C-alpha cells in the first residue's frame, strides 16, 4: 500500500456508511440464481441510486422539451437544466470555463471527436501519435484509423510485467514529429493508475497535447483537469452512477476553438446557406443535433450524489476493498493476479490455473456474483501477458467486504468443480 493510499485510509474516521448507501440502490437488492446479487462488474458499468433515477423521472414528467432557442416554458426549463448540468460537470473536474465541457454520447464518442476535430485537421504524413500498451480499444482504434488515413505513425509506450508504464521509455518516444499523446488515466483491464501528470508535463516540454481517457478514473477519484494540465479529458456517465448515452469531453478552450467540427447539423451552426455556412462557438460547435438532454441532466444529478458521498471517501473505501480482495485472492493457490502495479484503482484481474475465464464467470454467476471475463477491450494488454483473457472483479463504493468473501468463495467453488 503506497503513501497516497495510506493517507486516504486515514480518512477512515469519516468512513462511508456503506450499508446505508446500498439502500439507495434498488438493483442491489436483486436475487440472481437464488443468491443475493454481488455486483462486481462496475468497470463495465455502474448502478444508479434512487435520487438519480428520480431526477430523470422528474425531468420527463415535468421538464422535457427540446432545448435551445424555443420561447416556450418547457424548452426554457430544459435548456436551463441542461446548461446547469454543464456547470456541474465543469465544477466536478475543475475546468476553467463552462464552454470547455462538451456533452458526448460517451468516452468512445469523445475520443473520436478529438480524432476527427483535432487529428484530421492537424496531423499529417510522417507525424507521430503516442499511446500506451494499456489502452482500451477506444483509445487505440481511432488513432489507427487516423494514422492509416494520413500516413502517420502510431507509437506505443511499453509496460512492465506488473502492468506499470515505463516512464523513461515513454519519454524516449517523444520526437519533433510527435503531435498527440493518448493515455488512459486508469487501466480498465489491470487497474493501473498511470503517472498522467508527469506524462503530460513531458509531452508539453515538446509542445505536444495530451488526451486522457478518464473513463475508469472520474468515478473513483477526484479529477482536477487544471492540476493535471491535460489538453483533453474524456469520461462516461454510466460508469459513475449516471445513465448510458452520455459522456463528457473536456478540452482547453484555445484548442477546441482551433478544431474543426466532428458532426455537422443543427445547433453547431450560426447560419446556413447553400453558399456558405458558419459554425457556432464552443461548446455548441461540437454538439450537433438534439443532445442527450435527460441523460446529461441525470449525469449532473449523479455528480451531485457522488460529491455528497465524497470522492475522497469513495477512493478510501475502494482502496480498502482492493487491499482486502488482493490479500484474500493472493492466499488462493492456483490463482494469479494480473496487474500488480504500485498504484492501482479497485480492479482485480485474475486467472485460475486450468480454468478458462468464461467457465469461472459462468460458475460465479450461479452464485450470484457478477464479474467480467474476456479481453476487456484491451487485447494488447492480454497479449503482453500472453493470455487470451482474464476474469475481472471491479469494485465501486457500494461494494462490501462480505461481497469480497463471496467472490473468493465462488473462486474456491470453481477450483473444486474443475479440479
Amino acid at each position: 500500500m503506497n503513501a497516497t493510499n495510506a493517507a486516504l485510509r486515514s480518512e477512515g474516521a469519516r468512513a462511508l456508511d456503506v450499508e446505508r448507501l446500498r439502500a439507495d440502490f434498488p438493483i442491489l437488492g436483486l436475487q440472481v440464481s437464488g443468491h443475493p446479487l454481488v455486483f462486481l462488474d462496475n468497470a463495465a458499468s455502474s448502478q444508479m441510486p434512487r435520487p438519480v433515477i428520480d431526477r430523470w423521472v422528474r425531468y420527463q414528467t415535468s421538464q422535457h422539451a427540446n432545448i435551445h432557442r424555443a420561447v416556450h416554458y418547457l424548452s426554457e426549463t430544459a435548456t436551463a437544466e441542461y446548461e446547469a448540468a454543464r456547470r456541474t460537470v465543469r465544477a466536478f473536474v475543475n475546468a476553467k470555463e463552462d464552454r470547455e465541457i462538451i456533452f458526448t454520447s460517451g468516452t468512445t464518442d469523445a475520443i473520436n471527436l478529438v480524432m476527427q476535430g483535432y487529428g484530421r485537421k492537424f496531423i499529417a504524413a510522417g507525424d507521430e501519435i503516442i499511446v500506451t500498451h494499456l489502452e482500451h480499444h477506444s483509445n487505440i482504434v481511432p488513432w489507427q484509423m487516423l494514422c492509416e488515413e494520413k500516413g502517420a505513425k502510431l507509437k506505443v509506450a511499453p509496460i512492465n510485467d506488473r502492468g506499470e508504464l515505463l516512464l523513461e521509455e515513454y519519454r524516449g518516444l517523444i520526437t519533433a514529429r510527435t503531435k498527440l499523446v493518448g493515455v488512459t488515466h486508469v487501466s480498465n483491464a489491470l487497474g493501473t493508475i498511470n503517472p498522467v501528470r508527469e506524462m503530460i508535463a513531458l509531452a508539453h516540454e515538446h509542445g505536444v497535447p495530451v488526451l486522457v481517457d478518464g473513463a475508469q478514473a472520474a468515478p473513483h477519484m477526484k479529477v482536477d483537469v487544471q492540476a493535471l494540465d491535460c489538453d483533453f479529458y474524456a469520461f462516461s456517465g454510466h460508469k459513475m452512477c449516471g445513465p448510458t448515452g452520455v459522456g463528457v469531453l473536456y478540452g482547453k478552450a484555445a484548442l477546441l476553438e482551433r478544431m474543426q467540427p466532428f458532426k455537422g447539423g443543427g445547433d453547431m451552426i450560426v447560419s446556413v446557406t447553400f453558399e456558405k455556412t458558419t459554425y457556432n462557438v464552443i461548446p455548441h460547435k461540437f454538439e450537433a443535433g438534439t443532445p442527450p438532454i435527460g441523460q446529461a441532466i441525470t449525469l449532473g444529478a449523479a455528480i451531485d450524489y457522488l460529491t455528497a458521498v465524497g470522492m475522497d471517501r469513495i477512493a478510501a473505501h475502494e482502496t480498502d476493498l482492493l487491499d482486502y480482495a488482493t490479500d484474500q485472492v493472493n492466499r488462493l493457490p492456483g490463482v494469479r493476479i494480473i496487474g500488480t502495479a504500485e498504484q492501482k484503482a479497485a480492479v482485480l484481474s485474475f486467472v485460475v490455473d486450468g480454468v478458462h475465464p468464461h467457465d469461472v464467470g459462468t460458475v460465479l454467476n450461479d452464485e450470484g456474483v457478477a464479474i467480467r471475463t474476456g479481453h476487456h477491450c484491451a487485447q494488447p494488454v492480454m497479449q503482453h501477458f500472453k493470455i487470451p483473457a482474464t476474469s475481472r472483479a471491479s469494485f465501486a463504493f457500494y461494494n462490501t467486504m462480505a461481497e469480497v468473501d463471496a467472490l473468493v468463495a465462488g473462486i474456491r467453488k470453481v477450483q473444486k468443480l474443475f479440479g
Partner: protein
Amino acid sequence: MADSKQLYQEVILDHNRKPRNWGALPGATHKAEGVNPLCGDHIHLSARVNGDVVEAVNFEGESCAICKASASMMTTIVKGKSRADAELMVQEFRDMATGKLDPAGPHHLGRLTVFAGVRDLPTRVKCAILPWHTLHAALNAIETTSTEAEADPMHAPIGGA
C-alpha cells in the same frame, strides 16, 4: 438466464479433464483451425478420411471447458461415420445449441444432448459450436474458421466458409 449447473454436469467435466482423441493425428488427410478471438478459444483439428468414411478425428488447443468437452465428445461420436452423416451431425448440433432442434425429438446426436442447456447461455453457444464448425471446415478444405462476425452461428448459415 438459466444456471449452469445443468451444463457443467459430470460427463462434460470429465471430457474437459480428460479430453479424448487429444493431439495431432498421424496420417491426417484433413486439417483445420478454429479460433474465437473474442473469447480465446483456439483449437486445431486433424482428421483421417478414407473414401467416404471419417476414420478418426483428433483435436488439441486452448479453450474453455465447454469447447473442449464439445470437441472431445465430437471426436468420439463422429469416428467411423460417413462424411454425409458427419455433416448432418454438425448441422443438428448447431441447431440444438441455438434452440432450433428439440433434444427430445428425432436426431442423431446421441449423448451430445448433454449440451442442449447451452441454448440458455447465449454467450457460451459459440464455445460449444466451434469444434463442429471446425470439423465442417476441415472436411471442406477450409484452413481457418471461427464462430465470430460473418460466421456467427446465430446469424449465418453453416454452408460455405
